[in-house]
């Protein structure tokens, strides 16, 4: 842990790129010196006996199992209408956290995120229940994403068709589905909604080749309706294909922000791929 902190401090001193505002374009998302800190429980430390716990309470110390993770450290940028922004970086560089913060799901410790409309993550996995049938999960997922009951009914057939399950499976519990079938249904539900700002966190590479092609077409369709798109991916080809701009995150800070080709070239060189 100490080693990580040390490295973080070193990169703190490196200046992040300055934000340049383009007055001719319409901003959709403004991220202003954003810091995200979240707490992790049960992360080891201490002997973990009742006696040590009591001593800790008496000495008014924090729980050793509780660690604060400073995942995003002062990120600023402006996204404009029509932007498709790829977010790249190594594991644990804060990409997913940044996306969740833009969606307003993780409250900022400092700074702020300003958006036009409601950004939303593409994904409903958390709202679905494995014990229930596909049918019920479609309704539940749509309602959880904020569709009205009428919209849910209207979208229902489209979702079933897109998920392309084996006949009859829609009435079985989702726990009986193969992983590919489950992923297809989840994607179909998630894609049933239009978004003001679309946030995609590595949700594309699901299912077989045929479904991959169809989901890619669906994503492009969603992109056209959305004001701006953020894509987190490790697959650089995919980023290069879809995005007109790339943000490179390193240790929770922006290392580079700019044209797709330039940033990816620099990133590939730095990581030695």
């Amino acid at each position, binding site marked *: 842990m100490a080693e990580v902190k040390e490295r973080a401090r070193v990169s703190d001193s490196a200046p992040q790129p300055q934000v340049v505002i383009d007055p001719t374009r319409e901003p959709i998302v*403004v991220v*202003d010196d954003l810091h995200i800190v979240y707490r992790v429980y049960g992360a080891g430390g201490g002997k973990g006996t009742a006696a040590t716990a009591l001593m800790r309470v008496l000495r008014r110390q924090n729980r050793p199992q509780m660690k604060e993770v400073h995942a995003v450290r002062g990120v600023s940028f402006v996204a404009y209408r029509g932007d498709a922004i790829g977010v790249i970086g190594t594991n644990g560089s804060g990409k997913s956290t940044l996306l969740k913060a833009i969606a*307003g799901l993780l*409250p900022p410790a400092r700074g702020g995120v*300003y958006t036009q409309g*409601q950004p939303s993550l593409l994904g409903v996995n958390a709202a679905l229940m494995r014990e229930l049938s596909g049918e019920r999960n479609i*309704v539940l997922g749509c*309602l959880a994403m*904020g569709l009205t009951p009428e919209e849910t009914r209207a979208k229902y057939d489209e979702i079933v068709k897109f998920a392309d399950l084996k006949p009859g499976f829609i009435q079985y519990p989702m726990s009986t589905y193969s992983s590919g079938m489950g992923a297809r249904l989840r994607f179909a539900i998630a894609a049933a909604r239009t978004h003001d700002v679309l946030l995609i966190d590595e949700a594309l590479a699901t299912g077989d080749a045929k479904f991959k092609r169809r989901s890619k077409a669906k994503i492009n369709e969603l992109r056209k309706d959305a004001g701006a798109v953020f894509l987190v991916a490790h697959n650089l080809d995919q980023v290069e294909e879809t995005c007109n701009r790339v943000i490179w995150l390193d240790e929770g800070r922006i290392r580079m922000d700019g044209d797709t080709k330039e940033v990816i070239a620099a990133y590939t060189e730095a990581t030695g791929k």
Partner: protein
Amino acid sequence: MSHPDRFTPPGGESVDTIPEPPTLAGKSAESLAEFAARHGLTQSAARPPLRTYIQDLWQRRTFIWNFASAKSMSMYTSSRLGQVWQVLTPLLNAGVYYLIFGLLLGTNKGVSNYSAFLITGVFVFTFTQRSLTAGARSVGNNLSLIRALHFPRASLPFAMVIVELQQLLVSMCVLAVIVVVTGEPLSWHWLLVLPVLVLQLIFNMGISLVIARMGAFVRDIQQLLPFVTRTWLYFSGIFFMTASLAEKDALQDYPWIAKVLEANPASVYIELVRTSLLDSYRGDLAAHHWGHTHLWWYALAWALVAFVGGFWYFHRAEERYGRG
């Protein structure tokens, strides 16, 4: 000793000072926040004003109901008897208490129909108790949902109370059978059960909102809660008549104790259900010269205070749920 050359504001440096303010090329006068405001962008993780929040929540009512139904359906899928447990659990509970308090300890002094009296008390109290327990877990158990989707967070404690409401409706059907079997007549008084349960539902939603916020930030609440609810159980006149307890010699000098026990919200809702369902119990109360019409005012007041207070309290931390 003054330091005229130091213009730091009182209280020293603010923790929130930005170490390196974002400099904008050519436009350093305008901060990013101002730039965003000029273009009509709104803060993403901000807490919506109370009025919008209530509207959002109302729009989500189908989701709340569906989420609750899905939860209660999936609760029993792994057990062999399935939904039968919805009926069995309250029945077994009532059986245990009847064995101990009715047969072994013989608490049934002054109550003509003790088994119906006891089971009514247990079922009605269980509704409040389980709402409280489920409310405390509602945020912590659904963190992944909170971190993935946007919705008014109060939906979660509400859905948990709805799950318990669905359980209660099953219990109430069981109770109706028990009450008739034990020799109580059907009467128009039974209709009064509905408004009582509605008021109790509102009260339960209120307290589960409060406990949901507490449980979200202090997980220890969940360990402590069983002791709180058990103490509450013994104070709520479930095994004994508060009216006959008040006539005990030890309590004669402290009449306020009886008043407090009577105004206890759990006791209020239990007594109202009993007086509505059990013809004989109305007679028992009259024998002690205790009325029950004033309890309606208590029931209404508790429901309003708990709901309004709980909603306000829960909403005040809306943007912080999910941070851990």
